[in-house]
């Protein structure tokens, strides 16, 4: 009996010791990160979900890439543009391999570009002007256009919605309406398919055969040098739990720290927090141009006049260190930062002016169906503040709470608001997604073919076409400024300001770099 008890006691003590050891941080070669959401859809061509794009930047590489100055740099391929602006010749770097060992060929790149062109707005613009896209050697291929399109390289290098990633030809040949099922890229990390649990965990291993591009790393260009063996993305639905896990050393990186939880990290040497995306995000309100009252430009102007960016951002973020009152629809800190026409938005709104405009427009009290998502924390404050501002100006607001899924389904409906349609909703974008006249989908003015809200706006389409043909930055800026003024006047959407999300990471990580979203190359992990 004594010996049984002794064995039992030894076993319990041993198990306890092992349990305590297993509570210690993961090995030095693995970075455990909690991203803004769980990965469920893997195909970066079928969805614009940010987490899918982030995953794609780990696994795939891009032909060309944007640096921190918004300049397009060679990445997988060097490029040359003919003097007439009609021929783009891409030459692949030596030694590029897929994760399955195959060599990257022009045929792979051509198939990838063609698939992307079927889904992406910028890709479609190139496709509309394309004469041919064909291999011209073992390492080179040529894109020939029917007319000059200076935006071509910018479209191919954009970092979001939808970025252009290179895939092996057999994967890129998947129809653009079907999701790819293999994650084989040529990027700095290999996707470990057997450890992938949708919505729970994604595991990446360093790709030993990756050949970093020459030049210093800047955003998504330059040398993507991986300095750890593995990166694991773990999904945690609860921000407080994520914070506790970071403080306890169980994870190394937390992409989005809610601003109200930041004080918990104050005075802690073992955890650092900083805003990694210098541009941050914007929040906007979008109206439905098809139905009264927002089919009337004067009433849209009244709504804009009633809004105050500061009120919205204070409710949304709270701490003024993490938001910026900014009238520029292309974002503050971008090459096209103009603020024409945004005076009322950035100076607290003008309720009296809005009332007057509303009266002049003959608003008849038609209720405004305002869709309010209740399950997305970054979208719950805007509808409430905006609804009150609209009421103050004299609008009759019918605020309808719903989950985000219901909202995204309903916003696709062109029915009258009383028959299941809508008048206004709010959403957020990261700044690179709205930073240019062609990238910003809310500026599409092609009626039924435009983004939800469907403005029929020939004037903005003319300006966008001029922008697409503009050969130099100076001309582009002049056109962008006109677009800014036009959007404020026509109220294609209401720009409600810019905000920044801090990230936090363990002191064991060094080399964490600034970019519009987290990148894991260049990061080293040492024992903390």
């Amino acid at each position, binding site marked *: 009996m004594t010996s049984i008890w002794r064995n039992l006691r030894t076993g319990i003590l041993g*198990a306890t010791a*092992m*349990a*305590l*050891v*297993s*509570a210690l941080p993961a090995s030095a070669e693995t970075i455990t990160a909690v991203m803004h959401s*769980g990965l*469920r*859809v*893997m195909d970066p061509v*079928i*969805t*614009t*979900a940010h987490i*899918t794009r982030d995953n794609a930047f780990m696994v795939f590489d891009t032909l060309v890439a944007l640096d921190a100055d918004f300049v397009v740099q060679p990445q997988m391929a060097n490029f040359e543009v003919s003097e007439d602006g009609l021929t783009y010749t891409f030459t692949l770097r030596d030694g590029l391999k897929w994760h399955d060992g195959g060599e990257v060929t022009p045929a792979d790149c051509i198939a990838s570009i063609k698939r992307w062109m079927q*889904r992406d*707005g910028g890709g479609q613009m190139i496709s509309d002007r394309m004469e041919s896209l064909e291999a011209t050697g073992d390492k080179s291929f040529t894109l020939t256009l029917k007319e000059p399109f200076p935006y071509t390289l910018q479209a191919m290098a954009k970092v979001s*919605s*939808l970025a252009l990633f290179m895939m092996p030809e057999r994967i890129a040949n998947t*129809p653009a*309406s*079907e*999701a790819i*099922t293999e994650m084989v890229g040529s990027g700095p990390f290999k996707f470990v398919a057997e450890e992938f*649990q*949708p*919505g*729970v*965990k994604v595991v990446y291993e360093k790709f030993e055969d990756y050949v970093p591009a020459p030049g210093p790393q800047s955003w998504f260009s330059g040398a993507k040098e991986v300095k750890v063996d593995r990166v694991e993305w*773990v*999904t*945690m*639905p*609860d921000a*407080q*739990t994520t914070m*506790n*896990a970071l*403080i*306890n050393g*169980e994870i190394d990186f937390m992409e989005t720290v809610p601003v109200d939880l930041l004080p918990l990290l104050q005075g802690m040497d073992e955890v650092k927090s900083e805003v990694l995306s210098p541009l941050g995000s914007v929040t906007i309100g979008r109206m439905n141009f098809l139905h009264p009252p927002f089919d009337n430009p004067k009433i849209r102007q009244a709504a804009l006049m009633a809004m105050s960016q500061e009120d919205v951002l204070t409710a949304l973020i709270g701490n003024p260190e993490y938001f910026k009152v900014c009238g520029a629809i292309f974002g503050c800190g971008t090459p096209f930062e103009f603020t024409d026409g945004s005076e009322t938005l950035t100076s607290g709104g003008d309720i009296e002016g809005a009332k007057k405009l509303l009266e002049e427009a003959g608003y008849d009290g038609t209720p405004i169906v305002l869709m309010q998502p209740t*399950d997305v924390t970054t979208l719950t404050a805007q509808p409430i503040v905006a609804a009150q501002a609209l009421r103050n100006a004299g609008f009759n607001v019918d605020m309808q709470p*719903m*989950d*985000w*899924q*219901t909202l*995204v*389904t*309903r916003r*696709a409906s062109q029915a009258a608001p009383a028959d299941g349609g809508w008048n206004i909703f709010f*959403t957020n*974008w990261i700044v690179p997604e709205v930073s240019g006249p062609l990238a910003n*989908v809310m500026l599409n003015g092609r009626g*039924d*073919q435009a*983004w939800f809200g469907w403005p029929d706006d020939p004037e903005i389409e003319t300006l966008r076409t001029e922008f697409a043909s503009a050969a130099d930055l100076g001309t582009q800026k002049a056109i962008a400024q006109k677009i800014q003024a036009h959007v404020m006047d026509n109220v294609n959407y209401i720009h409600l300001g810019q905000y920044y999300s801090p990230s936090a990471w363990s002191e064991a990580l060094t080399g964490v770099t600034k970019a519009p979203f987290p990148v894991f190359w260049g990061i080293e992990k040492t024992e903390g």
Partner: protein
Amino acid sequence: MPIYFLRRVLAAIPVMLVVAVFVFLLLRLTPGDPAAILAGDMATPEQLDRIRETLGLNDPLLVQFFRWIGALLQGDFGTSLISNKPVIDLVADRMWPTIWIAIITLSLSVIIAVPMGVLAAWKQGSWVDHLVMTFSVLGFSVPVFVIGYLLIKLFAIDLRWLPVQGYKAPSKDLAGFAARAVLPALTLASIYIALIARMTRASLLDVLNEDYVRTARAKGLTEARVLFRHALRNAAVPVMTVIGTGFALLISGVVVTESVYNIPGLGRLTVDSIFARDYPVIQALILLTSGVYVLVNLLIDLSYSLLDPRIRY
């Protein structure tokens, strides 16, 4: 008994069928479109329609229903519309964390709650009884996430004895599994200990007033033998019902606890699938949950005859 068992199993088939029809229709009538979440914010109506077509969501409801039921009868639960993974794999991945936590929670609850209930009944009206009842009221009243955060603060953040969160499969890392299972199991057990202790006390108090207990005492049996051999066995029928339904409830998902402790269980899978309108996954999960309820109820009924020989099927 075997005939009874067979009859109950056969009776479950129409129940499951009704559940299947109900769930299918309910999901299709709820606003939401999986194609919209799949495609993201910038998709055009034309692109959405093409995705709907590929996913078979444009087919008439009857066609979709019979396609699903037909596949189900062949053991195929379908493929997730969002992650493109077989539903059966998704559910299998998430099932074990939930089952393990449920087993540990209920074991812990029974081990602690039954003696507490017996003690409270035996010492009815004493300070022991009051203490047990106070604990029961607290266990019921304090939300699980509050208990969860308090336990994390104490054992993980301050004392650093246990990890804050996570799950490890026991087959891969038994110690890691144990370390991560303790706090969620304790959190959930706080409710079940309260419930089972209260039920044991009430049931035992009824039995302790029966004639055969007085007879047993008159025969000179020890109090422990009277309590555990004669009284508790007869009082166990309602307690078994609570334990059984508790197990079914734990299996069908404990979303808050799974979120607080970051356990990749069925509760989170259910919520994620509902938000994404991932129809095949939600349908499979609800059918599975219904199956568990039917099975657990059957096992509870069968256990009655083992505990009380007067009950015959």
